[in-house]
């Protein structure tokens, strides 16, 4: 995919909404287009978190393994979502497995490349960090709601 096309895709993605154009152009330098077929493993728990993904189309499942009980899907992500923040948190290892549930198109962002750019330009780092923190807060809130098992009922 051409650089200008990548830039356009990123500019339209909710995660990068209203990000300064100059920063976006810096980020595009770390971006590449990726496609995952249905069932394809994107990453596995414990592997090096070299990338994160801006999902354009499709659906990705995040799984955790629970010994002999097999994998449990704990979340799915789709169009407009961001997959992964382990690239930002030492020791940069994935905490889940991820696989494509259906044909999925995404922009992969090189974590090492981005970390370097964030280190060189702290304003860019702050911008990205704020967006990631927002994402983490939303996921944490969703996880708490899932843990509450809210669909239980009053007793009659």
């Amino acid at each position, binding site marked *: 995919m051409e650089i200008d096309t990548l830039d356009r895709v990123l500019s339209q993605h909710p995660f990068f909404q209203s990000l300064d154009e100059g920063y976006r152009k810096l980020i595009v330098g770390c971006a590449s287009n990726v496609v995952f077929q249905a069932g394809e493993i994107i990453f596995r728990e414990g592997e090096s978190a070299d990338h994160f993904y801006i999902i354009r189309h499709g659906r990705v499942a995040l799984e955790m393994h629970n010994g002999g009980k*097999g994998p449990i899907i704990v979340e799915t992500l789709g169009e407009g979502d961001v997959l992964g923040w382990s690239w930002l948190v030492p020791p940069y290892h994935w905490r889940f497995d991820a696989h494509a549930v259906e044909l999925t198109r995404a922009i992969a962002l090189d974590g090492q490349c981005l970390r370097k750019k964030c280190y060189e330009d702290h304003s860019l780092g702050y911008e990205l960090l704020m967006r990631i923190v927002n994402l983490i807060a939303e996921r944490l809130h969703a996880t708490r709601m899932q843990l509450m098992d809210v669909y239980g009922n009053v007793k009659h």
Partner: protein
Amino acid sequence: MNPVNPMLPEVFKIRRSAQNTEDVFTLELERKNGGGAGFPFKPGQFNMLYVFGVGEVPISISGDPTRPHSLVHTTRAVGTVTRTLCQLKPGDEMGVRGPFGTSWPVEEAEGNDIVIVTGGIGLAPLRPALYQMFARRERYGKIYLLYGARSPGDLLYMDEVGLWQHQYRIETRVTVDAARRDWKGNVGVVTHLVGKISIDPVHTMAFICGPEIMMRFTRVELTRIGVSPDRTFISMERNMKCAVGFCGHCQYGPHFICKDGPVFRFDRIQNIFGRREI
């Protein structure tokens, strides 16, 4: 409702019973002594179901209001009364008082896009609203059904939901809290789906039914996409006993859920909604 004495149950017989999920079941009832007029009700209303010698519980009506000859209730077996209810067989008798309470503003919503957000057993009180909209589908814009449950095995009416998508052009988004790998749908909270729909918020009405915490955060998400409180309706649940506003068991601030609700326009209760003291 019995026009002479709303506290007096009428005897009904079980026509059919069906297990929907591990702990949810549906009863189809008919009057013991017949009754040509059927059982007219409005979507969102509830009945008090009386298991003789055991107790009485408020249960929403989940059938089709355009076909009132059949009275349908879907409920979860979680307590003494509902566990006994789920053991009743065709031909068994029980008492019914109702219908009680306010309803979903299905007719007032004509001309709008509709967003229905529901979780768990909350789809049951909304199903009559959907049926009524389907009967006049051309009078509504887009209809979104956002539905969450604990697991794929806890999803209600899934055969029907599949049919609704095609037959009535319903945009359906279903999600569960956790799933095995054979589940190909969404996993996550239902509130997360709100931000992913495409509606004109000024011409949208939202109907929400589910656990209060789910409804609270659904309102947060509706605010984000521009749907105002006066275009949002929620169904509240409290421990209703008399169902006619006498006993006070279901008092909710200045309201009685049984007669002022269960369906409220959100702006009329937003000052007390979610408050710990109430």
